[in-house]
């Protein structure tokens, strides 16, 4: 973190020296009082970005499993349900889906006689979770299918039902193949959470937009914004690698 700020400071100094181009790094210069206020303002969106991403990822992980299971059924009908969901949801770009959820879903609720308002916070979470669930479902499906069929058969012959077979036999084995790509998917959610700015969520990108409007320094402010995401994603990546190492070392 400090190293990034240091290199940013070096960048400030270097570009500040150049005379032909009017850089405005002062807007995010932590050495000055106003620059520091701006930086604090930008970073203040971090909490919501993280919160939205975490909740959306949690929902997506549960929803993805729910969507994956019919895809593993012997019954064609169930598999079609899975295919339709995955193909449909996967094909919808995030921004239109966000608009649809935020502006459209409350109308659908109202037509059903339900008064469920959707605020930007939950609108963003629902959209991210839905969009991501198509991908997590495919991760689950691949992970579960990679466990040999004999495992389910053996579970059946010692009297376990479907739910017990999944819970005690299949998922514990599939999880080490599922977790690393799921964690990777979390990076996708963090980045896509930037779209929440469009419906007024006060997360990182929204803060940057607001500051740009008052300071007229898009390059400098968006550069810092990119660095903020970089830091977040690097932290998650380190977590993913740690997870992969742990999972790998557990193998037999």
């Amino acid at each position, binding site marked *: 973190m400090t190293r990034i700020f240091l290199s940013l400071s070096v960048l400030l100094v270097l570009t500040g020296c150049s005379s032909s181009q009017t850089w405005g790094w002062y807007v995010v210069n932590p050495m000055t009082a106003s620059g520091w206020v701006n930086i604090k303002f930008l970073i203040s969106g971090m909490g919501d970005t993280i919160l939205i991403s975490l909740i959306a990822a949690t929902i997506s992980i549960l929803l993805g499993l729910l969507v994956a299971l019919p895809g593993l059924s012997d019954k064609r009908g169930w598999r079609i349900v899975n295919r339709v969901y995955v193909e449909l949801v996967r094909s919808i770009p995030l921004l239109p889906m966000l608009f649809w959820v935020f502006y459209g879903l409350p109308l659908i609720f109202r037509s059903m006689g339900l008064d469920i308002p959707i605020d930007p916070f939950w609108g963003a979470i629902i959209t991210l979770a839905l969009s991501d669930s198509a991908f997590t479902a495919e991760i689950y499906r691949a992970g579960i299918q990679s466990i040999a069929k004999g495992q389910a058969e*053996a*579970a*059946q*012959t010692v009297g376990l*039902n479907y739910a017990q077979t999944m819970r005690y036999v299949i998922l514990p084995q599939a999880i080490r193949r599922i977790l690393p790509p799921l964690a990777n998917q979390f990076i996708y959610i963090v980045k896509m959470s930037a779209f929440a700015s469009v419906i007024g969520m006060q997360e990182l990108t929204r803060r940057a937009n607001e500051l740009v409007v008052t300071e007229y320094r898009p390059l400098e402010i968006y550069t810092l914004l990119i660095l903020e995401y970089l830091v977040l994603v690097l932290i998650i990546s380190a977590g993913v690698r740690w997870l992969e190492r742990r999972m790998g070392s557990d193998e*037999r």
Partner: protein
Amino acid sequence: MSDTAIELVSVNKWYDKFHVLKDINLTVKSGEKVVICGPSGSGKSTVVRCINKLEPHQQGVIRVNGIELGNDPKPVAEIQGDVGMVFQQFNLFPHLSVLDNLTLGPMKARGLSKAQAEEKARHYLARVRIPDQADKRPGQLSGGQQQRVAIARSLCMEPKILLFDEPTSALDPEMISEVLDVMVSLAEDGMTMVVVTHEMGFARKVADNMVFMDAGEIVETGTPEHFFTNPQSERCKTFLSQILQH
């Protein structure tokens, strides 16, 4: 309980267009040991898998302990666990210890307490002569030991019938006898057994009935004595001459 443990009447099964089981009729009495043999692809494993409801059949009737199995591929609750199965590839749960492999079924399907299930597990581990491997993972055991754990896992469900699907085919030669010894001792205790195997020495020793299958049909049945000394069909003679020439 009726005297008949397993009854197959005119069972037919297809994989798409491929006719895997053709008009199979077979009766296994309680306590009887039946050995099914035949060339690979003859449908002998499929018969055993149908008895255990791992695969559906399309025509005919299969009754296990008097309960008819429908054509629906869903497991049949009444016979689950009453019919134990030992697989060629062991199919032990690699993420669980040997002990947990054995206690999972009794605890989750039979509702036994952990203490009861563990007591039972240790009893049957001793029965298959590996009392001291309970805390290891299956991957740390030899093939022969793994297969004996798999047998113990089936026994923990106190099954009335045990099915064996080529239990020694995946084993190194020196480990075959330790598994067969356990199977012989189970047979001596009166377990109803259906065994798909090429181990003709074992068949001679324990089988009450031999079943020879080829191309999805039961070609010949008979007592081992009759079967080995005086096979009737050409196909059976050819098969026996190939398998017994060593």
